[in-house]
């Protein structure tokens, strides 16, 4: 049996500049992350462009785009109320970007020789910045609308004074953890899923290389498993985008309506 090569599941998350050798030379470089972000952007543009031709009778494509916008409009309206419309642009942007980045990252572009697909949302710097934007919107809207009264967010109404002393710090901590948890969720979901795919994809190759009947059997099993996990990955990508949009809408609701 051939010695199995060491599995390196972290390699796929490495950011490497395109056209030069190292990241050291300059902080401003065109990396594979930037390239795939542009690809995601182009895909979103193509999708929206094809569906916003204002046909009187919507075709399939326009129906898809209208379904998407209607879905997000529903999220903002149900969670924030009549004012939710104002915050639809950011919720829509975050949802569509995370969804497209997750799904494009899960596509099997690797079968093209030389192509190195990269999942943009598998970097905490990307999802973290998105969650910080959500958090800043909450802060700005909250202080703009309510002034210093915004701090009453930490103190539930009609609570005994002793309990207020206890609850206020807890609420404050849970409020400050929000940007962290919001960005961690889509990042780790993609990160963990892609590690799993990489490891079991390696098992397929190593089983074939082993050359024994058991090796082929394990390869076949792992191949079926990888297909299943890929399907799960698409589901998780959609759910994470939905959860990000939903939680953003909920947090903005806190700032707008001060529960």
């Amino acid at each position, binding site marked *: 049996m051939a010695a199995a090569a060491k599995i390196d599941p972290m390699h796929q998350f490495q950011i490497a500049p395109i056209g030069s050798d190292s990241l050291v030379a300059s902080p401003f470089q065109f990396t594979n992350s930037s390239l795939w972000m542009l690809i995601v952007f182009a895909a979103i543009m193509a999708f929206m462009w094809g569906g916003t031709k204002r046909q009187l009778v919507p075709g399939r494509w326009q129906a898809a785009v209208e379904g998407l916008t209607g879905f997000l409009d529903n999220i903002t309206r*149900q969670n924030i109320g009549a004012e939710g419309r104002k915050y639809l642009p950011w919720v829509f942007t975050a949802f569509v970007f995370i969804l497209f980045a997750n799904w494009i990252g899960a596509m099997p572009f690797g079968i093209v020789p030389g192509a190195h697909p990269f999942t943009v949302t598998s970097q905490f710097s990307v999802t973290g910045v998105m969650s910080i934007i959500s958090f800043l919107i909450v802060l700005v809207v909250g202080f703009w609308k309510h002034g210093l009264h915004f701090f009453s967010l930490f103190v539930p109404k009609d609570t005994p004074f002793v309990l207020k002393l206890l609850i206020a710090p807890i609420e404050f901590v849970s409020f400050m953890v929000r940007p962290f*948890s919001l960005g*961690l*969720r889509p990042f780790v*979901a993609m990160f*963990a899923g892609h590690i799993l795919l990489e490891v079991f994809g390696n098992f397929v190759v190593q089983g074939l290389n082993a050359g024994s009947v058991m090796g082929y059997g394990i390869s076949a099993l792992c191949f079926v498993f990888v297909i299943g996990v890929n399907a799960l990955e698409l589901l998780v990508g959609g*759910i994470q985008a*939905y*959860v990000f949009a*939903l939680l953003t809408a909920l947090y903005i609701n806190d700032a707008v309506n001060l529960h």
Partner: protein
Amino acid sequence: MDLASAQVIGAGLAAIGVGAAAAGVGSVFGNFLQGALRNPAAADGQQGRLFIGFAAAELLGLMAFAVAMIILYAR
């Protein structure tokens, strides 16, 4: 015990939390399904809450995973 084996054992122990989160997520969806089958008319309106509960339960599992990764790759 050298550091490398301690790291691997620690990462494995931290990964137990992912299984606990699996139980949590299963409980969220299972209980939702129970309620939804009893009153299907009200189920659609509660989907937002379903996913909030799912997100809260899942986050803790993801944190366990993040801790496992930090332990495993810490130098």
